[in-house]
Each structure stands twice: as structure tokens, then as C-alpha cells.
């Protein structure tokens, strides 16, 4: 099925003067418009109602419940990426939150200082050396790339919520999870709306930057000041960044990581979370 989807995307017409990272821009913009329309009609109104009706404490429990389930495979991905200590941390979180935290609805682990990570199979493949591949936008799932789409197939395959039986419970749970995610993005999507001149481009670039950062756990090697800044030319000073250019192609990335500050994994829920089905990433108008 993936092959079919991918070839469908690749076969689509491109628009002129396009970005080399986005050869399927025509297809992607169509999907983006669909997502925007869906979000305006259903995603955002439902999320807004959920936000207004359910008290903050309830939304906190729902958010944590799903975040706790996700920690299981986040740990597995950390292990696959050669970060066994992080994996142990993730599973310790799952252990504490599932028991003391009452089935995960309370994030007691964070209060104990055990921080949450953000990992998925797309990041694991990236860590193993896979490049982004062309940018892709999927209906309802939002921004992705060829690599992250392949990752999604694995994420979905192992997702306990998506595997849950009976089907009725499964669909209700998936809908609740999507609603919770979208509700958490209400502020972010409003800010995106304000910040962007062309939301499609802004979202795409943010997604690609964000994924790159995630693959390096918040410390991507940076080509800083890659463009001349005219009269603001800086005195040339050696960069003092602690992060060495971690070789992406090293499967056991434990060695370069050891030099990084621990737990710099970062996350924003803006423009990403492709590992989970949720209706569109942003709200907004019908395009530029």
C-alpha cells in the first residue's frame, strides 16, 4: 500500500520554480488544502469544543494517558538508535506512570525529573542514515517525508491504540487521541496563522527543520550563518557549540551522543507528531 501511495505522490505534477526538497508540491498543496478544509470544518471546531467543555484536569489526564502508551515505543526506538540509557528512562517512565500514575493519567515520572523523549521510527531511520527524501503531505496525517512515511507504517503497525480490539473502542480511542492532540495545538496553530506569509511554505520548512532537529535530539550540526549578512558581518569567532557533527550514518550513535548534554531532546507539538493520526496540523484560512 505504501508503494502505491508513494508512486502516486511521485507521479503528480510539480509546480514551476519549485523547491528541490518538494518535487511533489502540486500534490502536496492539494492535500494541504484538503487538510485545511477538513480542519476548518471538523478538526478545529471539535478540538475547540473539547477544550471548552472538558476541564483542564480532564484534558491533562487524556493527554498523559496517550503519552504514556507512546513511551513504550519511544523507548524501543531509543534502543534501536543506540541509546539504551534513554530507552531505560522511557520504560521507567512507563512503569511509574502506569502504576503510581494510575494507568498513565498522571505524569508522575516528569515530576520525579524523568523527562519524556520524542522518538519514532522516522527518526530511527534518520539516525541510521536515511535522508529525508521528498517532502510529502498526507490527508489527515499532515506533513511528512518519504522517510518519515516509511517510519509511519511501522509506528502504525506497532501502535497499541490502532491494534486495539474491539473496533468500536479502537475508533473511539483514536478519535479521542486525535481530538486531544488538536486541542493542544490550538495556540500553536493560531500563532502559525499569524506568523506565516504562505502557510504551506512556512509549515513545510518548519517541519523539515523540526525533524532534522529531532533526529539529532535537539543538537543538529549547524551551518550557522550560511548566508552573508551584508553590513552585519561578524567577527569570525570559532563556534563554541558542544555538539560535534554526529555522523548520521553511525547506527550505534552512542559515542557522539556521549559528548552531548544529556536530555536535550526537545519537543514542540507544533507542526509535527506525524506518528499519530490527527486531523491536519494547523487551522486556518483556505490558503494564500
Amino acid at each position, binding site marked *: 500500500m505504501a508503494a502505491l501511495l508513494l508512486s502516486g505522490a511521485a507521479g503528480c505534477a510539480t509546480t514551476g520554480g519549485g523547491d528541490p526538497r518538494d518535487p511533489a508540491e502540486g500534490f502536496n498543496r492539494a492535500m494541504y488544502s484538503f487538510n485545511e478544509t477538513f480542519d476548518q470544518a471538523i478538526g478545529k471546531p471539535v478540538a475547540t469544543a473539547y477544550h471548552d467543555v472538558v476541564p483542564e484536569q480532564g484534558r*491533562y489526564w487524556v493527554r498523559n494517558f496517550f503519552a504514556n502508551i507512546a513511551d513504550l515505543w519511544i523507548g524501543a526506538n531509543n534502543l534501536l538508535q543506540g541509546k539504551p540509557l534513554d530507552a531505560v528512562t522511557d520504560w521507567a517512565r512507563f512503569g511509574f506512570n502506569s502504576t503510581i500514575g494510575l494507568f498513565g493519567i498522571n505524569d508522575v515520572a516528569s515530576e520525579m525529573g524523568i523527562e519524556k523523549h520524542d522518538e519514532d521510527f522516522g527518526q530511527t531511520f534518520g539516525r541510521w542514515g536515511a535522508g529525508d527524501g521528498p517532502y510529502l503531505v498526507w490527508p489527515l496525517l499532515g506533513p511528512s517525508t518519504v522517510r518519515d512515511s516509511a517510519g509511519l507504517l511501522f509506528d502504525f503497525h506497532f501502535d497499541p491504540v490502532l491494534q486495539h480490539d474491539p473496533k468500536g473502542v479502537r475508533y473511539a480511542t483514536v478519535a479521542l487521541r486525535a481530538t486531544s492532540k488538536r486541542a493542544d495545538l490550538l495556540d500553536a496553530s493560531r500563532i502559525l496563522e499569524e*506568523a*506565516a506569509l504562505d502557510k504551506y511554505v512556512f509549515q513545510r520548512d518548519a517541519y523539515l527543520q523540526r525533524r*532534522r532537529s529531532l533526529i539529532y535530539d535537539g543538537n543538529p550540526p549547524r551551518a550557522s550563518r550560511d548566508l552573508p549578512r551584508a553590513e552585519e558581518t*561578524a567577527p569570525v569567532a570559532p563556534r563554541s557549540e*558542544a555538539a560535534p557533527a554526529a555522523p548520521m550514518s553511525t547506527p550505534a550513535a552512542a559515542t557522539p551522543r556521549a559528548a552531548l548534554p544529556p536530555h536535550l531532546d*526537545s519537543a514542540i507539538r507544533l507542526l509535527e507528531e506525524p506518528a499519530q493520526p490527527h486531523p491536519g496540523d494547523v487551522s486556518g484560512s483556505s490558503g494564500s
Partner: protein
Amino acid sequence: MFAKSLRLATAAAAAAFAFCLGAAAQEQSPDALVKSVTLEVVGIIQKDVKDGDRRKLISVIEDKVLPHFNFTAMTSSAVGRNWDKATPEQKSRLVDEFKTLLVRTYASSLAAYSNQRFDFRPLRAKPTDTDVTVNVRVLQSGTEPVQIDYDMEKRPNGWKVWDVRVAGISLVANYRTEFDNQVRQGGIDGLIKALQTKNKSLEKPAAGAKK
């Protein structure tokens, strides 16, 4: 007697405050600067800003945050290779419009602030470095920490921010493609016009809600 000693204490506090400000401009390390400005702004928001009052937020940003940003550097970096094609007059208009847009967006981000905690990371740099990255992490129970990186450069008038990366997304880099597209379609003036239109649309209170 009591009133007098109180006044004296106030004067002393004011003097100490003024001294700190002077010292801040001269010697404060970049990480200490980020920390003091962040805590000050958050303190004001928690005390004085009711219901995300945008005008108040914008004035706080203009007073407290803007002096520490190098907007010319940010704008030239975001405009990228087209920067050299702009006349000095176009450049100054670009800087003004971009600054306005960033301040508005920043105000919205601050309006969404709800008592998250900050983790100010120690600076990993040598005292002689003039170009550093200051890391701050925003912690919230139930979600991953959000990392904010301030790229700062030592200028004659103190440390100035020239890029902000939120969760790995560089603000300057994220505008680069957008700006490039605008310039390709309408030249530098086209970009200025697009920014002006955007800023005007944000002046209305219900901006962005419906179009």
C-alpha cells in the same frame, strides 16, 4: 519615621536597580542576560497582563526584549541572497516590517504562556567567545521539554540575539524560503508589500480567525 526609612529603602533599591541595568549592558554574560530578561518578562506577564492583553504584551516586548535583538542581522539573514539587491531605504523598511511581524507573533506566543517552568542551561562557551548559543528549556508536566536556543553575538553595545530556534526551528531560516518566493514574484518591493499587508491584517483584534 517609618515612611522616611521606606523612602530611603526605595531609593536604595532604585539605585541598585539602575546599577544593575548599567552592568547588564556592559558585562552581563549572555546566559545571565537571557535568564534575567526571561524572568522579568514572565514576572510582568503574571502580574500585570490580564487576559492576554495584546497592547500591553507588545509594549512589554518593545521595552524589555527588543533592545537585546539585532533586527538588521535577523532581517538580512532571512532575506538571504536578495539582501544585497535592496537599497538602503528598502533595507530599513524591510527591517521595520519584519520587526513588527516578529513582535506581533512573539506577543501571541507570550499570550499562550501558562506557568511553564524554565530550565536555564549553563553556557558552554569560553569567556573570549563572541558568538554563542544560549539554551533555555521550557518544562511542562505531561509533555516533552521545549528547547529554545538564542544565537547571540557580542556587539559593541552588548550581547544581541540574531536568531531564535524554538524546538529546533530557526525563525530566520523559516522565513528564508517565504521571503525568497516573494522577491521572485514581486521583487524587494513585493516582499515589503507582503509584510505590510500581513502586519495590517494582524492589527485587527480578530486577525486570522476568519477570512
